Each structure stands twice: as structure tokens, then as C-alpha cells.
């Protein structure tokens, strides 16, 4: 028992001993654990990187924000989070973010330890977007006229990058308009300018040319080489000598290929004052500058060598110091080509080569502008020369019935025409006259003789004057398979087309046209 009591006393004394060892409870900096927080930012998450506390990023960049906690992340922590501009933005140690708002942003990592102590570290991020070029306020204004080509010209504009103060540079170009046609004595000695400027203005001291159009452009870039979406594309005109102006025009034509054009400027108060210009223009090459013209009121006439193009007539004023601009002169061809057979008939006899006259008043038609179909079959064997379209038919194209030949032609202005011709039956199952010339005092033996191999019975035999649209002889309900008659030349005109027709009882019909000429002197006649 005594042993137990003694043991209790010793234990109690040993226990209380700790209360007397006060040095054990004094704060010793060496024994404390310093919690450190350090944040860095980077363009990449994993690669080794320098510790960066502030940087500027492109608005399209992804920013990686990294928090390092010392001695390690296993220390007793109550909470940690990131703030962006004072607002909660992440609960991770490391995270990535794309910032869409240009300008300055402050990121703070906050760590609350076991003892409620707050540890934090911050970093600064500037986000830059594309520069904004003011493309509505610049000098000189678009379309400015009468700039003295021999004085200094001032170009000014402005640009900024939202939310951040950045330096800008500017891509500036100045070019003289390249015209299809320049008036006499209009050779240009201008050297185009293409340069990078550090300031939002440009002074040009060198000489421009008088009465010319100049085009200038500006695009802004900031320190991060981000280009402005906006681009200034403007132009101005220079003036000439006192009392002079000029005319610049865009002549729209419907042809891809150049056409000859004649321009005339007739002074309305002085008929002796006429200015003529000869040039060519196409749909892609059609801007003209006529050089210096004395100021005054003029009648403008524009003609083409091609008759299908309608001429332009317009009253214009040439003003002292100004360039008169005509942007909408339409020199167009709306007339389609024409097609006719060389017999001028739409119903044609079958022939190895059919010839058609194809003409257009806007230049040359070529084979590629034509298409020929025999019913649904495309005929590729064709060629166009000297206004004649030759269509080659094959032996297999012959038929005992009418065939339809369709010809389409388009000109350079895409005006097109489509015409249908009929090709008569071939071979013919009958014989009859062919082209014949008789004397006025003579006569002609008309004949028609059926020899169809199918045994079709003849219903009608007929001679028809196509020229006068009258029947010459017609025999119906006949059981004969041939007919002939001699007629005096006095019954005919000097020239006519006669159609020999045979109609069978089954409704089938065959015919042939031929010409009959009546001459004063008999030259030659022939019967088939």
C-alpha cells in the first residue's frame, strides 16, 4: 500500500513538473512552421518557368495560375481559394483561365491555416485585345477633292487597345489608282508608299500627280502584333492647273473581252472644243481617267464599234480643280445573235452538211458559243466560220419521218437564242423534180412517182408553191402511184420554191422542196 501511495505522489510530482518548465511553452521561432504562399503565372502549366508576378497576355491566351504553399501542401489548412478582382474564381491550387475582358486584373490566392491566420499572395495580369482603329474619323476624309499635289498632305487617324496602355504601329500605304486608260500625257511618276509608322499620322512632302486618284490604307498593330480588325481604306483626288478638271469613269460592259470604245466630250458652249478618246474596255478592265480637261459643261458620248452596244449620251460638268466621277456608265449588249438557214427556211432537206447563217453585233461568235441537238442527241461535229455554222449529219441520222434540229447560240454578253429546224424525211420513197430553170417561153414537166418498198397505198399527190402559198396541182383519192403534167412557164414567177408531196392512206406523208427559176433565156433545165 505504501508503495502505491509513494508511486502516486511521484507521478503527480512528475506530472506537475511540466507546469514549472515554462521555457517549454515560450514561443520559439525556430520551432515554428512558417507557412508561405507564393503565386506565379505562366503561359504553360507544366514546363519549367521563371517565377512571374506580373505579365501581359493576349486576350486569346490561356493563363495558368499556380499557387505554391510551403513547407508543403500537407500543412493543416482550413480553406484556400483564388480571387480575381476581389471575386471568387477558383478553389484549386493551380488552374487555367482565359480572360475575355481586356485591361488589368488582380489575382489573389488566399489560404486560411489551422489557426485562422490568413496567408495570401497576389499577381497582376494585363490582358490586351486587338487594337481598335477608328475608321470613321480620319484626315483627309474619303473622296476629298482638289488636294494640291505640290503641297504637304497630312494623313491622321487614331487607334487604341482597350484597357491597357500599349504602343501602336501602323501599316500605311499610298498608291495611285491604276486606270485601264489614261488620257494623253498622263504618265505617272509616282512611287507607291508602303511603310510602318510609329505615330498615327503621316506627312507626305513629295509631289503627287495632278488630277489623279490616290488610295491610302492604314491598319493598326499593338505591341503584341495584334492587328486591328478595322482598316482604313480611303481615297482622294488631286487638283490640276487653274481652270482645269478631269473625268474619271467606270464603263461597265457585259463582255469579258475588250471592245473598242470611242469617247467624245463636246463642249456645250464652244462647238470647236471637242475631245476624243479611243480606247478599249472589258468587264474587268474598265476604269478610265481622261487627264486634264478645261472646266465647262460637256456632252459626253460613248460609242462602241459593235452595233449591239447601245451608245451612252450624258451631260456632264467638268469643274475647276475637281475630278468628275462617273461610276455607273453601262455599255451593254442586250441583243441576242440571229440564226437562219441558208435557204431561209425552217424546214430543211436532209443533207450531209447543213449550213446556217449565225450573226451577232457584238463581235465574233465561235464554235464554243454554239450547241446543236438532233432531238436529244448532241451533235458535236460542227464548226463556225465566216458567219456560217456548218452542222455535219451522219447517214444514220436519216429518217422516214421529220426530225427536229435545235441550235442554240450565245454571244459574249450571254445573250442567247434557240431556234428549231425541221429536217424532212430521208430517204424519199418517191421521185420528183429537182431545182430547175426554164425559159419564159418554155414549159416544165412536173412529175411525182411513188416507189415505196412497203406497199403503202397513195392517197394524195400534190405540187405546192411554197413561195406563193398556193397549191399547183393536187390529186386526191387516187389509186395511181404516179402523176405528171406539163405546165407553161408563164404560170410561174421568176423564182419559187415548190414542194412535191405524197400522202399515203395510212396517214404518212413525204415531201421534197425544190426551186423553179424562170429566166428570159433558157440556160439549162433538167428533170430527175
Amino acid at each position, binding site marked *: 500500500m505504501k508503495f502505491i501511495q509513494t508511486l502516486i505522489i511521484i507521478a503527480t510530482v512528475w506530472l506537475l513538473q511540466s*507546469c514549472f518548465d515554462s521555457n517549454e511553452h515560450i514561443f520559439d521561432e525556430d520551432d515554428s512552421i512558417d507557412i508561405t504562399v507564393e503565386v506565379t503565372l505562366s503561359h504553360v502549366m507544366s514546363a519549367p518557368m521563371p517565377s512571374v508576378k506580373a505579365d501581359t497576355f493576349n486576350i486569346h491566351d490561356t493563363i495558368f495560375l499556380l499557387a505554391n504553399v510551403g513547407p508543403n501542401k500537407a500543412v493543416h489548412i482550413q480553406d484556400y481559394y483564388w480571387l480575381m478582382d476581389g471575386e471568387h474564381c477558383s478553389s484549386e491550387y493551380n488552374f487555367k483561365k482565359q480572360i475575355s475582358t481586356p485591361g488589368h486584373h488582380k489575382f489573389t490566392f488566399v489560404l486560411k491555416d489551422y489557426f485562422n491566420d490568413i496567408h495570401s499572395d497576389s499577381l497582376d495580369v494585363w490582358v490586351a485585345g486587338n487594337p481598335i482603329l477608328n475608321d470613321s474619323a480620319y*484626315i483627309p476624309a474619303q473622296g476629298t477633292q482638289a488636294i494640291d499635289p505640290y503641297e504637304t498632305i497630312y494623313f491622321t487617324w487614331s487607334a487604341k487597345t482597350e484597357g491597357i496602355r500599349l504602343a501602336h504601329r501602323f501599316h500605311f500605304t499610298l498608291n495611285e489608282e491604276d486606270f485601264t486608260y489614261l488620257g494623253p500625257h498622263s504618265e505617272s511618276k509616282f512611287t507607291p508608299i508602303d511603310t510602318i509608322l510609329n*505615330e498615327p*499620322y503621316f506627312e507626305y512632302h513629295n509631289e503627287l500627280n495632278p488630277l489623279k486618284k490616290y488610295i491610302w490604307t492604314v491598319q493598326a498593330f499593338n505591341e503584341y502584333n495584334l492587328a486591328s480588325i478595322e482598316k482604313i481604306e480611303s481615297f482622294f483626288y488631286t487638283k490640276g492647273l487653274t481652270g482645269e478638271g478631269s473625268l474619271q469613269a467606270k464603263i461597265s460592259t457585259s463582255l469579258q473581252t475588250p471592245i473598242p470604245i470611242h469617247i467624245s466630250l463636246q463642249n456645250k458652249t464652244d462647238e470647236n472644243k471637242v475631245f476624243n478618246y479611243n480606247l478599249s474596255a472589258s468587264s474587268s478592265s474598265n476604269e478610265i481617267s481622261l487627264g486634264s480637261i478645261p472646266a465647262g459643261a460637256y456632252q459626253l458620248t460613248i460609242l462602241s464599234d459593235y452595233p449591239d452596244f447601245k451608245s451612252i449620251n450624258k451631260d456632264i460638268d467638268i469643274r475647276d480643280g475637281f475630278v468628275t466621277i462617273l461610276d455607273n456608265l453601262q455599255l451593254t449588249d442586250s441583243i441576242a445573235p440571229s440564226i437562219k438557214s441558208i435557204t431561209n427556211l425552217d424546214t430543211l432537206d436532209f443533207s450531209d452538211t447543213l449550213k446556217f447563217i449565225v450573226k451577232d453585233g457584238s463581235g465574233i461568235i465561235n464554235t464554243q458559243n454554239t450547241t446543236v441537238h438532233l432531238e436529244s442527241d448532241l451533235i458535236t461535229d460542227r464548226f463556225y466560220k465566216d458567219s456560217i455554222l456548218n452542222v455535219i449529219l451522219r447517214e444514220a441520222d436519216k429518217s422516214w419521218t421529220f426530225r427536229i434540229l435545235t441550235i442554240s447560240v450565245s454571244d459574249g454578253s450571254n445573250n442567247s437564242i434557240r431556234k428549231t429546224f425541221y429536217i424532212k424525211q430521208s430517204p424519199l420513197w418517191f421521185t420528183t423534180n429537182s431545182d430547175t430553170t426554164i425559159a419564159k417561153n418554155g414549159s416544165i414537166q412536173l412529175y411525182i412517182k411513188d416507189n415505196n418498198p412497203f406497199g403503202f397505198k397513195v392517197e394524195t399527190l400534190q405540187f405546192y408553191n411554197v413561195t406563193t402559198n398556193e397549191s399547183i396541182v393536187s390529186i386526191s383519192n387516187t389509186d395511181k402511184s404516179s402523176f405528171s403534167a406539163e405546165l407553161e412557164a408563164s404560170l410561174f414567177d421568176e423564182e419559187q420554191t415548190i414542194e412535191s408531196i405524197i400522202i399515203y392512206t395510212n396517214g404518212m406523208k413525204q415531201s421534197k422542196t425544190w426551186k423553179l427559176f424562170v429566166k428570159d433565156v433558157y440556160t439549162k433545165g433538167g428533170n430527175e
Partner: protein
Amino acid sequence: MNLFNRSILPFLMAATFFGLFLIGCLDAPDYPEAFTPVESIRILVKQKGDSFSTQLKVHPSDSATIKVKVFPEKYQNDLTFEWFYSTDKKDSLLERGAEYSFYPTKDKKNIPNKLISTDREGNKDSQIFTVIINSPPVLSDSTIPANGDTLYGSAKSVFLFAWYSLDMDLLNGDTLFHTIDIDGKKFDVGTLLQVKQSGLSTGKHKFRVIVHDLYGDTDTLAYKEFFVIDTLEAK
């Protein structure tokens, strides 16, 4: 004899141990000293008629007062301040105290550029700064066109706009930037002193010029009116 049963010895021993325990607990360490509570020491300057500003810029035509402001303010009196004009070779003490008045001159020896703040424990904080002496730009009232002028031309022809600005600091690296305001539409024209602009139709128009220097000082002309008469020709 059983002392635990027959005397007050156990009680005395327990009381003694308890007393010693309490004494031991009273020997607990003090709370660690807190960090310096001063958050920031800011330098401000002002001139006659203006309020104090952290933009350390003064014009040379009037005396200026520079002062230090401590945050939180309750610690302002716990610190002492010394204003110096500091060069690479030496520091010249100009004033002790939270405020110092000086007259901005080209001779900058009386203009402080260094502040040393000292707390009661002798800890020091040093700040290097620069007080900019900037003369504001001035625009001449003489312009082209002058107020009331009549210009002949058309909406497409160019008219000359010219003005003149001056700044005493131009030789010291300052630069003047101009904005021309024509009928309320502003055009930044940089350092140019003239431009030629079109787009002015027949009638009354107005324009003015605004100039600012690198340090943000500005001058603005009052609007000047002019009239355009369309002659259908360039003049």
C-alpha cells in the same frame, strides 16, 4: 501510523502541489508581438487651389506643398519623417515633418526626392520619388480659319485648319498632342499643327483645338465659327 488517515498532511500536500501547478501556469509566455500595423505611406502634393494628389506633378508658377500620409491614419503620429534631396553622392536634408513647402524651380535642390520614415523602434522606410515640374501647354488664339471667317469651296474640297501651341517643357522632352474638333467630330492629329479636311457643306461650322502634353496638362480653345459658301469649285 497512517498519516493519510490521521493528519492534514495529505490536504497540505495536495494544496501545495495545486499551488505549484498554478504558479507554473502563470509562467505562460507572452503573446508574440504583432507585425507593424502600418499598411502604407503615401506621398501627396498640391498647389494653390488644388487638392492633394498622388500624382507628383507641379507647375513652376506657384509654391507647392508635399506631405506624407500614413494608412491607417492613427499611426501617423507614431512615425517621424525626413525629406531629402538625394543625389548619387549625398543626401541633403530639407525638412523634418509630415509636410514640406517648396517653390518649383529649375534648381531642384529644394525639391525633395527621398522620404525616410522612422517608427518608435527605429525601423526606417525609405522612398525615392520624383516631383515633376511641368508647364501646361498653351494654344494660341490665332487659328486658320479665324473666328467668323468665310471659306469658299464645296463639301468635297479641302480646307486648311492651322493652329499654334507652346509648352515651356518642349526642350526638356515634353511632347504636345492635338485633337481637332470639327462640328463635334474629333480627330486625333498627333503633333501636327495643321491639317486639311473636307466634308464641310454650305453653312455655318465650328471647330476648336485641344492640346495635351505627356503629363496630362491640357489647353482647349473656345469653339471658332466659320462659314462655307459652295462655289462648286475648289479654291
